[in-house]
C-alpha cells in the first residue's frame, strides 16, 4: 500500500513538474517576445528610406566629386544604399518566425494545434523566409549591377576603376539571374514553380574547365 502511494506521489510530483515547466517556458517565451517588441519598435520602411537616401546621395556625390578617393567613397555609399534597400525588402517580406509563434501562443481562441496545422505554419514560414531572402538578393544584385554599369559607362570614372565596375556589374548580373530563377523546395511547394535555373561548374580534364547554367522551364 505504502509502495503504491509512493509511486503515486512520485508521478504526481513529476507531472506537476512537467506542467509547471511547460507553463513556465510558454510564459518565458511570451515575455521575451514582448520585451523584444518593445525594444525593436521601428518603422518597417526605415531600411528602404535610409537605403534610398544613401543611393541618391551616393549618385549625386559620385557625379559631383573630382577626387578619385571621394568617388570611391561615394561608390561605397551607393553600394551600402542598395544593400540596405535589399535588407528593407527582406524585412518587409520576411515572415518573422518569433512573431508567428508568438501569435500562435497568444491566440486565445485556439487551445491545441493539430500536427497538420503546425506543419502548415512551419512550411509557410520556411517558404516565405526563402522567398524574402531570394527577392532581397535579386533586387539588390540587379540594382548593384545597374549601378556599377552606370559608374563604368555613363559617369566619368578612371580607366582602371571602370574595368573593376564592369567586373562587379557582371558578377551581380549572374547573382541576379540565379536568384531570379532559382527557388528553394519549400518556396516551390508553397508558391508554385514556374521556372528554374541551376548553375554548374566542372573540370573535364586538366585543361578544360566548364561553367554555365542550365535553364529549365516547367509548364
Amino acid at each position, binding site marked *: 500500500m505504502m509502495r503504491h502511494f509512493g509511486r503515486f506521489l512520485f508521478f504526481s510530483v513529476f507531472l506537476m513538474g512537467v506542467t509547471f515547466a511547460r507553463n513556465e517556458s510558454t510564459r518565458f517565451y511570451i515575455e521575451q517576445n514582448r520585451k523584444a517588441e518593445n525594444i525593436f519598435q*521601428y*518603422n518597417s520602411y*526605415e*531600411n528602404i*528610406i*535610409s*537605403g534610398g*537616401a*544613401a543611393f541618391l*546621395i*551616393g549618385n549625386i*556625390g559620385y557625379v559631383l566629386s573630382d*577626387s578619385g*578617393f*571621394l568617388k570611391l*567613397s*561615394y561608390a*561605397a*555609399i551607393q553600394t*551600402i*544604399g542598395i*544593400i*540596405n534597400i535589399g*535588407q528593407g525588402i527582406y524585412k518587409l517580406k520576411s515572415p518573422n518566425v518569433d512573431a508567428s509563434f508568438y501569435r500562435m501562443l497568444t491566440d486565445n481562441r485556439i487551445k491545441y494545434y493539430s500536427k497538420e496545422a503546425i506543419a502548415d505554419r512551419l512550411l509557410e514560414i520556411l517558404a516565405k523566409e526563402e522567398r524574402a531572402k531570394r527577392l532581397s538578393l535579386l533586387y539588390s544584385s540587379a540594382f548593384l549591377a545597374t549601378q556599377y554599369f552606370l559608374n563604368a559607362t555613363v559617369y566619368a570614372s578612371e580607366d582602371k576603376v571602370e574595368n573593376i565596375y564592369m567586373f562587379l556589374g557582371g558578377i551581380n548580373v549572374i547573382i541576379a539571374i540565379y536568384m531570379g530563377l532559382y527557388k528553394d523546395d519549400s518556396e516551390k511547394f508553397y508558391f508554385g514553380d514556374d521556372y528554374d535555373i541551376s548553375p554548374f561548374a566542372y573540370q573535364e580534364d586538366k585543361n578544360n574547365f566548364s561553367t554555365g547554367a542550365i535553364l529549365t522551364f516547367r509548364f
Partner: protein
Amino acid sequence: MIKKIIYMNLSKIFLTIVSLLCFYNNAFPLAITHQLRPNGNFDTLALSNACSTIVGTSFSVRCNPALFPYSKGEGVLISASGKSDGDSIDNGRDLIFSPITEELIRKIFQQKNFNTFTLNSDFAFKTSVLEISYSPYYLLADLYLFNPAFPEVSLNLINHESLRLTSGLEVLQLPTAVAKFIFSAGASVYYFEHSYENTVFSLFDLTTTRPENLIKMKSRYGVGADVGFFLDNNSLLFPKLSLQIKNINSTLEDDSSENEAIIQAPQFLFDTYSTIGIGEKFQTAYGRFDLSCEIPFSDYFFLVSPAQIMFSGRYSIGLFSVLGSAGKYYQNVGLRFDSKNFNIGITYSREADMGAEQASMEQAVYTGVDIIL
C-alpha cells in the same frame, strides 16, 4: 591688521589670475586645434566632439566613457577616419612615410601656408563589461610656412599609438515627480607611445642639411586616463548633462620655450583638458534628433575659450544619419550610412585649425569607414 593681510593676499591671488590670463597666449605661441582627436572617429569629428550627451550610438563611448552603460553592441570593430580631400592624402603620406625634401615642402605650400593632415585608426573589442581598443596610428602632420621673405617652416609630426581600456556603470537612479534622473560614470585608461617632432627650420636648411638630421623623431611613453560623468533624464524639460576630464596625467604638454615663437602647440589633443556638455534627444516616428553643446576648458576647468564652444546636431533614421556642428572656427556637415557589417561617412568641413591666426577658413573633406566583425 588682519584685514590688511587678507586684502594683500586677495590682491596677490587676483594679480596671479590676471597675469595667468594675460600671459596665457605666450605659453602657447601657435595654438592649433584639430577636430579628429585621439580615440575619435568619423562621427565625433562631424560633431566637432560635441557629443558627450548622445547616448546609444556606436560612437557614444568615444565621446564620453560615462555613456558606456547605454551602449548595447558587442563584438569587434575596425575603424579608420581621416582627411580625404584633394592632395591631403598624398601630402600626408609623403610627409609621414617619405623623407622631407625641399621639393616636397614647396609642393605642399603651393596653394596655402598652413597644411594639415590627420588620420586615426583603431581596432575595438567590446563586451558588456568593458571595451578594449588599440589604435596603431593616430597620425598628425601640421606644416605652417611663415616669413615668406625668408621662408621658414614650423613642422609638427606626430604618431600616437595607444591601447585603451574603457568601462562605465550606472551609479544612481533618482525617480522624482517630474522625471527620472539617472547618473552614470565611466573611465578610460590608456597606455600610449607618442612619437613626435615639433620644430622650426628654414627652407635653406633643407638644402644644406640632410632631412634626417633636421627632423629627429622623439618618443615618449606613459599612461593617461579620461573620466566622465553623465546625468540623464526621461523628460524634455531637463537637458542631459555631462562633465569630463580628458588626458589626466598627461606628460605630453607643450614643451616649447617662449623663445621659439612659431613652434606649434596642439590644444585639446594630448594635453589635460575638461569639458561640460549639455544636450537633448527627441524621438519621433520618423527618426531621432540629438542636439548638443560642448564647452571645453584648459586643464581642470581652468580657462574657457568661447571660440572653442561647439554646437552640434544629429538626425538619424534607420541606417542613415545626418550630422552637423558649428562653432567659430569649425563648421561641418556629415552624412553617415550604415549597413550590417560596413559603415561609411563623409563630412564636408570649413575649418580654421589655427583659430584667429588663420586668415580664412579652409575647405576640407573627411571620410570614415567602420568594419564590424
